């Protein structure tokens, strides 16, 4: 997985987020202020444009530009959180020209650590962490068990989907949804949904590459 792979991932994220923009906005209307889809679409569109203009020879440089652009363009809580996730992933992979599965697993863990440190959320509080934490753990486990790429990426997205789905019965303890208290129960967290989409994009690009 080289820089080209990661640029393809970001392009796929931008496409998927744009396609699911209304759905994300819908989720964010139920327990938020109806701007999640719009904000992320704007952010990843800007990232795609930035990558088209910039020279990014390594996976790390792609991830860093992604993170910095998200911080500059998204706003809200999503900007700093996703921005930090990508920046920490970039830091973890350094200037390696290519990443193998273990390196990617490390990057995902670093991303998670960045998010939890900045946002101070843990699992069970109805946030993006509820998708990202189990996904990163499942991927690391699969990789440690020697799984083939297809299986490892399946473990990643299965865990992300389950995690996002599991936010439905939770009461939000972080972010705007937390103001609703018990009324946030019964609605999926939009951040967990967008995280699952982002990780699905990763799996789809990996699947295309090996096809």
């Amino acid at each position, binding site marked *: 997985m080289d820089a080209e792979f990661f640029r393809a991932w970001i392009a796929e994220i931008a496409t998927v987020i744009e396609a699911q923009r209304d759905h994300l906005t819908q989720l964010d209307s139920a327990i938020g202020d109806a701007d999640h889809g719009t904000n992320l679409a704007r952010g990843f569109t800007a990232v795609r444009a930035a990558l088209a203009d910039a020279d990014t020879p390594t996976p790390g440089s792609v991830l860093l530009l992604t993170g910095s652009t998200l911080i500059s363009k998204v706003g809200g809580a999503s900007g*700093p959180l996703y921005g930090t996730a990508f920046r920490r992933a970039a830091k973890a992979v350094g200037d390696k020209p290519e990443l193998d599965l273990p390196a990617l697993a490390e990057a995902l863990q670093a991303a998670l650590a960045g998010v939890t440190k900045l946002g101070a959320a843990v699992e069970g509080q109805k946030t993006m962490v509820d998708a990202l934490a189990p996904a990163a753990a499942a991927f690391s486990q699969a990789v440690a068990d020697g799984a083939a790429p297809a299986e490892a990426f399946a473990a990643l997205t299965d865990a992300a989907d389950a995690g996002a789905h599991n936010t439905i019965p939770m009461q939000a303890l972080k*972010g705007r949804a937390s103001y609703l*208290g018990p009324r946030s129960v019964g609605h999926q967290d939009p951040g967990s949904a967008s995280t699952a989409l982002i990780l699905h994009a990763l799996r789809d690009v990996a699947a295309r590459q090996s096809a």
Partner: protein
Amino acid sequence: MKKLINSPDTVVSDALAGIKAAHPSLSVYLENKVITRAGSPVAGKVGLVSGGGSGHEPLHGGFVGYGMLDAACAGEVFTSPVPDQMLFATKAVDGGAGVLHIVKNYTGDVLNFQMAAELADDEGIEVVSVVVNDDVAVLDSLYTAGRRGVGATVFVEKIAGALAERGASLAEVAAVAAEVNERTRSFGVALTSCTVPAAGKPTFDLADQEIELGIGIHGEPGRTRAPLQPAHDIVATVMDAIHADLPLEGDLLVMVNGMGGTPLLELYLAFNEVTQYVSGHGARISRNLVGNYITSLEMQGFSVTVCRLTDSLADLWDAPVETPGLRWGR
């Protein structure tokens, strides 16, 4: 929902261009979406920077001017601005005496301002941040993102702005900002939701005979739904919530604030109810604001903000101010 816009994507830019054209006392940076006082920085004075999502006008851009803010950063509708904007604003208003960031307590605002303060620190600018968290509708800080920053923001910006104008130090200006926040509580009620331009429909549905109690300023649902009832009863609910948290006594500064879609006729009516409640509790309203100060697009509704004044806070409130949104003494 009919909107007076050209397209959802250009709402903020188009509006900022209008603000620029309307107010020569402001410098409006369209690319950065930052508003500062024309002729910034004011040398030797603490600079006051705030900002937030668009859709709350006149907050914050309408409060840039003498005696109040030096700069305001405009985010997308209901979305906090980004660190780049805040850093740009901070540098633009740094008069050598440091800069105060007035941050409403929302995760996005807090995180972005935090990042901006670090960037400003990297550039050698002294920044102190004060978080505003006056909303009593958010019950338990331990299990939530904490109380929202709402109406007290207006009071903080005015009173801290006045002290800065008198040449006080950054520490003193920050202290008075924190003091105002501590002495102020708010509660809001919605009669309708509002429609974010990019979303195209109301954020939540309220039936004709329903109201939403304990709202914020971003169109999101509140603490509970209740039946539509006379203003007298709604105000009692609002004031009970405030009084339970901050017992009403002494001289009060009271703001009855429109959420954007409620006519002034109704806001004055509500203020009448508030005055009766307050005197019924043996306190006195010595200063007031009635109107649209911190809005939520076209939402119908109102919020009440109450500050327990001291003599010095009242004196700072009375100090001259000259901004598009608030003007007296000049």
